[in-house]
């Protein structure tokens, strides 16, 4: 009896001691949808995590779990992280939205940050980047580069973020090339190199000579390289190992400054639930180097477009724009509001096919 009490109190003391030690360090958790070596989306988030470690040194401890499926399993992973003492948890895929909210309810003292979603709570922030600004630049280059006038687009899931990208790319491709046609394939995965390569191959077989992807691996780049004269763009990360051709440019997500700022806020006790949506201007979206495979005049126009968006002079969704069914959306000169963009569930006029619901 005495011995067990002794043990128990020793264990408690030990527990308190480690608890006190953990106080010094801010523990930041990251939940990834793919492997850190995917070369795209998760790779960039992980770079952000490493930047946090670099910046704060001994003052932080980061943990991550990779290849977490979107669904109930994500809840288990987040719960585990919270139980292990994480102060701040970044959940980095759209499909973690409800799991994040559910787990956040159980741990009111842990701060959560969900990427690309729209549900917030007292301890849940959302953050995303205005990828559609990058898509505008891609669309501009793609419309100029295509000879077959068929642009293939590999979608992951039919969620607003992906649909915005398709619309933005299409609007800007159409501007420079009225004959352009988009072929859209939904892969229903964020990361499956074999399937992504299959999708790219199918699009190429059906005449596409430019491939845009909204999936996370570099497999479509490899498929395009294999096919020869097909143009691609890096997605989420620079994918420069496929430059200068087929990859002629890219959208790069730079999460590091945001992750550092939010970690700092937790340390200072100033963290508040927020809704952050930054673009080229703030540096969260960068355009990877446009390679020499792109004609000089096209490159110049693309850079001008980027500069206009960075200066806030141009919005990719500026009227006149109609919806796919022909109804009016934006009047001449009108700019889309963030609310509509955040929940975008329709194609703009000219795109073919239906969005899976």
């Amino acid at each position, binding site marked *: 009896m005495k011995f067990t009490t002794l043990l128990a109190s020793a264990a408690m003391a030990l527990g308190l001691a480690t608890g006190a030690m953990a106080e010094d360090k801010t523990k930041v958790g990251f939940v990834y949808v793919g492997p850190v*070596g995917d070369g795209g989306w998760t790779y960039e988030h992980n770079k952000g995590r490493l930047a946090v470690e670099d910046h704060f040194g001994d003052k932080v401890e980061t943990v991550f779990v990779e290849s977490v499926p979107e669904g109930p399993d994500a809840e288990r992973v987040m719960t585990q992280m919270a139980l292990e003492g994480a102060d701040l948890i970044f959940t980095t895929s759209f499909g973690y939205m409800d799991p994040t909210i559910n787990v956040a309810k159980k741990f009111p003292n842990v701060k959560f940050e969900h990427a690309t979603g729209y549900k917030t709570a007292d301890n849940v922030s959302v953050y995303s980047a205005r990828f559609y600004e990058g898509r505008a630049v891609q669309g501009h280059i793609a419309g100029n580069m295509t000879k077959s006038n068929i642009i293939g687009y590999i979608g992951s899931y039919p969620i607003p973020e992906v649909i915005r990208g398709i619309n933005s790319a299409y609007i800007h491709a159409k501007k420079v090339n009225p004959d352009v046609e988009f072929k859209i394939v939904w892969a229903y995965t964020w990361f499956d190199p074999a399937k992504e390569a299959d999708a790219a191959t199918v699009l190429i077989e059906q005449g596409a000579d430019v491939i845009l992807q909204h999936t996370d691996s570099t497999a479509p780049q490899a498929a395009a390289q294999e096919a020869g004269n097909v143009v691609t763009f890096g997605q989420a990360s620079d994918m420069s190992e496929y430059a200068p051709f087929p990859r002629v440019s890219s959208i790069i997500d730079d999460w590091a400054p945001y992750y550092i700022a939010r970690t700092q806020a937790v340390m200072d006790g100033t963290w508040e639930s927020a809704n952050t949506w930054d673009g080229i201007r703030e540096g969260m979206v960068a355009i990877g180097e446009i390679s020499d495979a792109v004609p000089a005049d096209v490159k110049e126009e693309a850079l001008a477009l980027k500069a206009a968006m960075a200066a806030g002079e141009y919005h990719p969704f500026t009227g006149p724009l109609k919806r796919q069914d022909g109804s009016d959306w934006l009047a001449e000169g009108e700019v889309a509001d963030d609310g509509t963009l955040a929940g975008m569930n329709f194609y703009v006029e000219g795109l073919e096919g239906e969005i899976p619901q």
Partner: protein
Amino acid sequence: MDLGEINPVLLVASLMVAATPLLLAAIGELVVEKAGVLNLGVEGMMIVGAISGFAISVETGSPWLGFVAAAIGGAVLSLLFVLLTQVALANQVASGLALTLFGLGFSALMGQSYVGVKPPSMGDIHIPVISDIPVIGPILFQHDPILYVGIALTAAVWATLKYTRVGLILRAVGENHDAAHALGYKVIKIRIMAILFGGACAGLGGAYISLIRVPQWTEGMTAGVGWIALALVVFASWKPWRALLGAYLFGGITVLQLNLQAAGVAIPVEYLAMSPYIITILVLVILSADKSSAPASLGRTFHASH
């Protein structure tokens, strides 16, 4: 919608490519299960094969050596499973799962320096005359050699299991290991050989993804093919030709649904996306109405003292 945009010849040709990794892994696992061992580590052995093959073919410049290395890599990893289940008599399900987890992590470690590297191309076989026959030529005679290896392996496994003494012994071990042991067959030895064969096949299947189908190295690139192969073996009632049919159905519908999507066919995409799974299961379940059942000793640990 324009179905004319789908080229049926290219479609059939690419479905065979999409099906091959699945077929190779499934045939290997089929032999393992016929010997009475359930190895859930297919995914792990595939991904290790994928990186072993990729690394060696990049280093040597020879895709052939790459495939040999992939088979060896898969087999070496399966040795771990052998140690756990045949020597230490550990639980097969747990050991198999551990093998997959270990394989995924280990391959990521091995592959650190191979991200973004382009492997040497194997090239397709072009047999003069017959590969120039319209339609049939591009479908049947213009593929990479490993695709034919997959088909040949299926035929070989089928013939071996059905007609040879070796096949009979293997099946005996899988059906009733005590009886086989009583007859003087070395149950453990036979099972070890089967597991190594399964590992080598899974390795080949993985390398097919990293060297031919994609071709590149990315962490976790097998993305669940190993699990589908496991399911395929069951739904194919442990029969090699049905496994081939199932793999081609699955690969075929995967490619076909992407083609239909790209051509803008007015079928809801959700149905198209789930169709490979549903149709493959349906067809194989209907085929297995003849009540062929699993090897009786499947998943049971054998110890000679029993």
